[in-house]
């Protein structure tokens, strides 16, 4: 049932190339998280807005981002926007697609996190002379980030894994792109994909452990 002899030596020769790809993967994931968090905070603020337009933006974004496949979102960023004359290259299209997805999920996470910060915190801050902006950024936000830190870590891991969808829009510099390129040149599918899987696992693991360390450093009482 499995007519295949593994050739590990030539496959491992490609490891430097694949590590280079892993770096690009990490780069896209980190960028999409940083931008995604910023947009997510703004959207979560919109969620409690009485302004119909702002609430509409929040609701539409979250509905589309959470209820359509990430693959579709990336495809739309590349071919969809391309149809309208906005030509993003593969790297940017992937970044836009994942960031859109991240922001949608994070907005909902942050909305929950904001609920977890008692109203009395804002009121106490205001009575101590903070203005509304200061009360939100200095008192509410830090507490919210403490509440949502672990879900955020999950989203980061999810973002790393989503970067693998870049191959559908012609990205060949990230880990999956490099792997797929090696695969079609040599047809040693199983070796290269096994190495790629291990690398993805290691990246995700390092990120999770790193996040735990950061949490321990930042959020202890």
């Amino acid at each position, binding site marked *: 049932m499995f*007519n295949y002899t593994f050739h590990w030596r030539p496959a491992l020769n490609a490891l430097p190339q694949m590590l280079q790809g892993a770096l690009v993967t990490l780069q896209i994931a980190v960028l999409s998280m940083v931008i995604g968090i910023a947009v997510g905070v703004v959207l979560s603020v919109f969620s409690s807005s009485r302004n119909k337009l702002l609430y509409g933006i929040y609701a539409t974004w979250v509905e589309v981002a959470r209820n359509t496949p990430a693959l579709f979102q990336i495809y739309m960023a*590349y071919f969809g926007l*391309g149809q309208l004359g906005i*030509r993003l290259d593969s790297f940017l299209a992937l970044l836009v697609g994942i960031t859109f997805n991240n922001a949608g999920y994070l907005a909902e996470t942050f909305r929950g996190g904001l609920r977890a910060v008692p109203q009395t915190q804002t009121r106490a801050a205001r009575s101590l002379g903070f203005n509304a902006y200061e009360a939100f950024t200095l008192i509410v936000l830090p507490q919210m980030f403490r509440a949502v830190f672990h879900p955020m870590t999950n989203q980061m891991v999810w973002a790393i894994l989503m970067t693998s969808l870049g191959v*559908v829009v012609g990205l*060949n510099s990230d880990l999956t*792109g490099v792997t797929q390129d090696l695969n*079609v040149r*040599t047809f040693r599918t199983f070796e290269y994909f096994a190495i790629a899987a291990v690398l993805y696992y290691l990246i995700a693991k390092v990120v999770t452990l790193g996040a735990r360390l950061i949490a321990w450093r930042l959020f202890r009482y």
Partner: protein
Amino acid sequence: MKWTPLVATAAFLTMLTVPPAFADKLDDIIASGVLRCAVVLDFPPMGSRDTSNNPIGFDVDTCNDLAKALGVTPEYVETPFPDRIPALVSGRADVGVASTSDTLERAKTIGFSIPYFAFTNVVLTRTDAGIETYDDLKGKKLGSVAGTFEAILLEDDMKTWGSSSTFQGFQAQADVFQALSQGQIDATVVTSTVAFATVNSGNFTNLKVSGDAPYPVDYVSLIGLRQEYGLLNYLNLFVNHQIRSGRYQELYNKWVGEGAAPNLLIPGSYY
């Protein structure tokens, strides 16, 4: 059960290392009465779908002929280009009739028959991109199906140009044409048959062929598992018979166009 993952891993590794009982693929195909061909269906005129979604094309007809010769019924396993070999190795398909270039690198993994078709490559570009010859590709945004014969040669040439041209490798031929038509890339290098079929299809009105790419002839072969000598021998003889019976020429005129089918003899060499 903390040992469960360990046991599962051990079982999986054992499965990988124990040699499978040898059964000749050719016997299996004849016994099962079905020939499963891996075909690529976004690569007209070699493989595509007609208006009622049935697979058609040069490769599909070649698969039909092979099945007829074996006295079995053909079954098509549609695979994108990168998945042809996984489909064979994992046993989803018996042979690949999928315009596979016979590179030495790939021959380390998979078995090739003698060539059953040959391609030459041309430059396909947008009418407004200002590209007239292969040399005009310098400094442009280029793309192709990742890892194909022509993509490898194009990327090699781009390295010697050293200018600001960029390369995007796609997973499917259809995506390359879409990106080219929309302007994400300015040009691609593609086999002449596919280029003319695409321009003539009328789906992309802003594409045109701009001259030949100076590449060697791209011979493509039928593929089977490397160790299945019985099957590979049969495939060689099958290709030989297709040519000597005139069926090769007939299929060429049916799917590709007028004139003589490409010469499959490699000048000055044995096969």
